[in-house]
């Protein structure tokens, strides 16, 4: 069998960490994505402008550059802030931006931009008559969103969402570069000390592939659920 030189359990923990980072950043991305989509469709020009700048800039810059900027920059920013507060108010505190927080925030921030585009397109795809019908039934704005917009929007958003999720999952490998011990970093360390790169990188790649396959199956099921009302020719 596969001889992992005792690194097996560590790499398993690394895989758990990868999944944690992926899910938490997905959560951040979904929240930012919904906010971004609402801002892009809002009647207020400043909101639309901010959202457009956000999605354009984020999608134009490599994830690694953003990650390095946020990881190194946020700590310096925080230190400056705490210095300033210490001088002004004589109150001493220190906030440590660790790799985990920086990684999750960066990936969430990046994919929030992609999610905004997905959600925006999906909101626009919902027939306007549906919303009017909801209002005619006397539903208020929240109810129209919950009962009419959201379920129909999800059907249009799901293919984009699943795509974004799969890209996000692969992007989590980058957190190994800012010092987080995810499975990519562990595999790199293990292969460096044992001089057997294939033994470690191939199983780790297989785990990523496995998560991809499981996600695809899961999304198929969810898509089926949200397409109940659609007649296929």
């Amino acid at each position, binding site marked *: 069998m596969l001889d992992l030189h005792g690194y097996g359990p560590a790499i398993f923990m690394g895989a758990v960490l990868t999944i944690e980072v992926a899910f938490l950043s997905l959560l951040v991305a979904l929240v930012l994505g919904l906010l971004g989509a609402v801002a892009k469709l809002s009647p207020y020009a400043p909101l639309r402008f901010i959202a457009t700048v956000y999605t354009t800039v984020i*999608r134009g810059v*490599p994830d690694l550059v953003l990650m390095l900027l946020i990881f190194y920059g946020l700590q*310096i920013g925080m230190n400056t802030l705490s210095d300033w507060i210490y001088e002004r108010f004589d109150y001493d505190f220190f906030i440590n931006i660790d790799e985990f927080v920086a990684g999750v925030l960066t990936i969430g921030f990046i994919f929030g931009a992609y999610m905004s585009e997905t959600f925006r397109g999906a909101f626009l795809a919902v027939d306007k008559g549906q919303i009017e019908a909801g209002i005619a039934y006397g539903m208020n704005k929240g109810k129209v969103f919950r009962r009419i917009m959201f379920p129909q929007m999800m059907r249009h958003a799901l293919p984009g969402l699943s795509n974004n999720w799969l890209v996000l999952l692969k*992007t989590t490998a980058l957190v190994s570069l800012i010092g987080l011990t995810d499975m990519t970093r562990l595999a*790199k360390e293990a292969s460096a000390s044992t001089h057997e790169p294939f033994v470690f990188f191939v199983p780790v790649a297989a785990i*990523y592939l496995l998560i991809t396959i499981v996600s695809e199956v899961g999304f198929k099921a969810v898509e089926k659920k949200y397409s109940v009302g659609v007649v296929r020719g």
Partner: protein
Amino acid sequence: MDWLVQLLDSNQIFTTATLLHYWDGFRVTVQLVFISLLIGLVLALPLAILRTSKNPWVSRPIWVYTYVFRGTPLLIQLYLIYYGVTFIPGIQDSIFWFIMKDPLYPALLAFVLNTAAYTTEILRGAIVATPLGEIEAARAYGMNFAKTMRRIVLPSAFRRALPAYSNEVIFMLHSSAIASTVTIVDLTGAAKDIYSQHYAPFPAFIFVGLVYLCLTFSILYVFKQLEKNLLAHLAER
């Protein structure tokens, strides 16, 4: 030119030396991206045609290749090739070692294999979307498979693939930043050097981010012009 010299002398980070370092990185990034896209496209075209084959012994292996390369992180693929190539038995004595010991070539190989997988799927989708009537018409004119492909299917498939391919080009530009993890001094690598020299993350990384942003916009502009010319028949009147 005096104002420029003055400007460069007035700060510590954007001096002539660091700007030249950025310029070298810029050249490495553009070369790396351009060459891998070019080779990737050349590889992807036959793969995409074979991938549409009805014979599962032909199309399945290509599907496995594209699925694996699209389903795993590029960083892992790069590590696997960069660290793995040293351990291929006998490679250090062969002529390939001369090439492969430079980190640029393992990185290029990883990028080519990755972009070829994505491009294959993009082209396949475009080929499959050819209207059946066009192919029947070609057959009725007595064209064989090669001629049908060359004259009927591929010209329109390339056009259909253009919007998706522009995404792949930008994706490749952004992915190329990870070349800096295997000691290649590309744009990101240059920014890292300058960051660690001056301990100034904001100037170093924001500047390089702006350069990437300009590159992205240039690529988008070129593809917009291409689409305007090649997809003119689909434009709204």
